């Protein structure tokens, strides 16, 4: 016999008006949202909880720093490049290890592919179903869908027959009665505003994007051997250039395929992703005033463009901090200054030796697991105490939003002409003011627009690589410091990175050729962390406050705003004990 549908949970007595969303699906990892609402179903306080921990940084202690990239890569299999690049950069920074320009360019091409892939998959496969009612698409008129497609872009799949085919497929699927991943969606919820033909258009592109994404990711396979989890190496990149016809290395034929894949990325982004975002956004302009969050933004800057690869000015996206929405000032940022970036564990399931109320800089970071939450199965967490495996990072005491919106705002504030042009054009098309960027909709739009910027920039990256090759510059690796015997007894450094989800940094301390301390502060740590010692909310929590839920049983509004951040929870949860003391036994209160 099957078990009864659900075991009755133990834990705290039910409190009124607490909406729990757990699991938050269509994300990476284990995220739980508890939202308290008033009599009008308006969220008065939201609490964000990461509910899974692995302890990878404890595991890394004492290992070869050259292996770090493989361990940190497994923080997350979605942004599979980001934590690897941050790790090799941290080791290279600590050792003062120069790498060849080709290695910088190949890493750029792999990172850029990651951004384009990740953002498109996020939009169509993770986020779209918050805005697109898949069952409503069944009512669409394929001829009208074709007309809509033709009116927004030159994308070739635009005929009535094409959409009739997708519709038939969808109808066949629905008629089978097994809805699979689409079962139990909030279909028919009044917050879904798209007409049936726009829904059919989006469903078609959901399927097309599945096919497109497995194609374009081959850039990772060519340079890194596979995806997910391609190979990296401290000191450069592991691939070599070979004569045509070689069974190994990167051949001329492989490079032609890279050019073709870049073209496929650009075409899909320009003709499908950008026009779809604007078309869908035009039905949801009210989301341009909801879901702002903390109003502070951080970015480390990304895509070194050379010729001085270490010059922060020579990057596609600038670094800096914006406070309180003030676009007239970009504040400088130093990740090694102990007073700037600090992590609080006041509401997290960890202990600090100086007390849980004192935040620590990542170089001094320490963490000991201390689970004090309810024993599962539970119904509610005690959100006045500790309620998450995520810590709360702060910059000069302030919570910060990391991600595409932060990058775009900082570039916009810096006066970057391309970014200004893209943003202003999009706002004008939607008839929205600049202030609409500070919202759920703004976050979605910023992600789309930066994807275009990055995809377009790949042409230049590829051209630079081909230019080097034509001049006979084939070096991809520098072996000068690969042997740990050449290293100083002690070294430490930080690897900065912009991942698709935002500002990412790894702090490493190396002693006697081994990892003595490793600490990562990840974009989702910035965004999903709980309240700090001063009670200041993290970005998710601040963004949800004030949301009115049409139906608390179907919290679509919560999903919209949380998904607009593109959560990645496995990355966000990490622990390290830097002092070599034994990990304190994990105990349930």
């Amino acid at each position: 016999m099957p078990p009864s549908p659900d075991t009755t949970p133990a834990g705290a007595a039910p409190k009124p008006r607490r909406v729990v969303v757990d699991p938050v699906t269509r994300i990476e990892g284990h995220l739980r949202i508890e939202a308290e609402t008033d009599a009008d179903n308006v969220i008065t306080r939201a609490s964000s909880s990461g509910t899974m921990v692995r302890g990878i940084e404890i595991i890394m202690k004492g290992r070869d720093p050259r292996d770090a990239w493989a361990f940190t890569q497994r923080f997350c299999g979605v942004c599979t490049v980001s934590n690897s690049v941050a790790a090799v950069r941290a080791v290279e920074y600590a050792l003062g290890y120069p790498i060849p320009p080709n290695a910088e360019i190949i890493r750029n091409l792999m990172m850029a592919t990651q951004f384009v892939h990740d953002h498109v998959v996020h939009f169509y496969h993770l986020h779209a179903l918050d805005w697109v009612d898949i069952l409503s698409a069944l009512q669409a008129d394929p001829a009208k869908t074709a007309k809509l497609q033709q009116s927004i872009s030159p994308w070739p799949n635009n005929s009535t027959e094409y959409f009739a085919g997708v519709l038939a497929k969808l109808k066949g699927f629905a008629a089978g009665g097994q809805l699979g991943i689409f079962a139990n969606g909030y279909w028919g919820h009044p917050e879904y505003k798209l007409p049936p033909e726009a829904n059919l258009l989006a469903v078609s592109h959901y399927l097309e994007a599945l096919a497109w994404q497995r194609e374009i990711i081959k850039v990772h396979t060519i340079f890194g051997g596979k995806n997910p989890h391609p190979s990296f190496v401290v000191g450069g990149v592991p691939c070599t250039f070979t004569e045509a016809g070689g069974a190994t290395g990167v051949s001329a034929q492989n490079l032609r395929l890279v050019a073709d894949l870049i073209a496929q990325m650009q075409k899909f982004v320009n003709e499908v992703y950008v026009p779809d975002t604007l078309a869908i956004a035009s039905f949801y302009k009210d989301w341009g005033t909801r879901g702002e969050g903390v109003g502070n933004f951080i970015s480390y800057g990304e895509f070194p463009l050379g010729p001085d690869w270490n010059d922060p000015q020579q990057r596609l996206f600038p670094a800096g901090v914006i406070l309180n929405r003030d676009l007239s000032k970009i504040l400088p940022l130093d990740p090694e200054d102990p007073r700037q970036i600090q992590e609080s564990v006041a509401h997290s399931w960890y202990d600090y030796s100086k007390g849980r109320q004192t935040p620590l800089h990542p170089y001094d970071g320490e963490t000991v697991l201390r689970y004090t939450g309810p024993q599962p199965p539970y119904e509610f967490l005690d959100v006045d105490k500790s309620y998450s495996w995520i810590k709360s990072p702060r910059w000069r005491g302030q919570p910060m939003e990391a991600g595409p919106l932060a990058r775009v705002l900082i570039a916009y504030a810096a006066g970057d002409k391309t970014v200004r042009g893209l943003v202003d054009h999009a706002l004008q098309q939607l008839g929205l003011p600049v202030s609409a960027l500070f919202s759920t909709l703004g976050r979605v739009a910023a992600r789309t627009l930066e994807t275009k910027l990055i995809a377009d920039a790949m042409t230049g990256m590829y051209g630079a690589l081909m230019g080097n090759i034509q001049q006979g510059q084939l070096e991809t690796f520098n072996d000068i410091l690969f042997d740990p015997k050449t290293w100083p007894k002690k070294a430490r450094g930080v690897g900065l990175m912009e991942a698709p989800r935002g500002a990412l940094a790894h702090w490493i301390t190396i002693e006697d050729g081994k990892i003595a301390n490793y600490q990562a502060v990840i974009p989702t740590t910035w965004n999903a962390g709980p309240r700090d010692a001063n009670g200041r909310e993290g970005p998710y929590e601040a963004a949800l406050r004030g949301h009115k839920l049409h139906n608390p049983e179907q919290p679509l509004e919560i999903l919209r705003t949380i998904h607009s951040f593109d959560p990645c929870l496995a990355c966000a949860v990490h622990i390290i004990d830097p002092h070599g003391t034994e990990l304190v036994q994990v105990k349930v209160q």
Partner: protein
Amino acid sequence: MATEQAPPTVYHQLRAQGMSRRGFLQFCAYMTTLLALPASAAQDIEQALRTKPRPSVIWISIQECTGCSESLLRSFEPTLEGLILDQFSLDYHHVLQAAAGRAAEAAREAAIKKAWGKYVLIVDGGIPQGADGALSTTGGRAGIEILQTAAQGAALIVAVGTCAAYGGIPAAAPNPTEATGAAKALTELRDAGKVSAPVINVPGCPPVPEVMTGVIAYYLAYGKAPPLDDLLRPVPFFGRTVHDDCPRLPFYNKGLFARSFDDEGARQGHCLLELGCKGTVTFNACTVVKWNQGTGFPMKAGHGCLGCSQPGFWDRKGGFYAPIA
């Protein structure tokens, strides 16, 4: 259980959605090749898909990085959209499913109830046994408890990825969360006869996507697990080392080894053993099926094999750049 109208067969579904008969036969033939089955097996697969309804698949994630799900997204033949629309009903999968929170959990519970004894259970991520399950929860429930509940009604259990197979990275020393693999986490229930489904390990970090989908296709065709080795791995995919089919093997045989990344030897395609390649002791299909539609694998591009489908590969002495003895 209440009888319901028989759901359409896989073949019915494929034809209804426009796949030609020829395309269907090609698919069956491809699966036969992929699984290294005799040519006659194409008929078995074809026959099975003609007559069997789409099985329910429940995918639960415990200590995952989502790399295994991402890998599934990269499957070329069969494609993910082909699988989820045509061949099986993916009734629970965190990363892709529309429903969230209570509605998502209800979907899993309903699928378990409806297909009790018949569904395929896929697990990714390690299973932490510490802190009474509080180290990985979903919907307030411990991951291990969700696994143990779902396993009891499964017809087949597939542990995808090295984490679900053997504990993987969370189980690397000092294993702070007491992580283990699915088969081990189910030992007591299996010994007590409460879990009768066979467990298949499909290791790899992540596994080659076509290996995951190939195992499911085999089950669709034969209603049972493919032949397994002593580590519960399907023999068709894990019978050879990646070294056996590596294009650098001729150089290994001649004693020609790259001594540094991008040295002259590396550029000539010499063997990567001295740079730490673990291919000689790693059983997987990377060099045969290859990654991303045959585009490559790590030793093709230029990095040694990490050995990621082997139990305990994270703790191998000397790390990833030490030559194996």
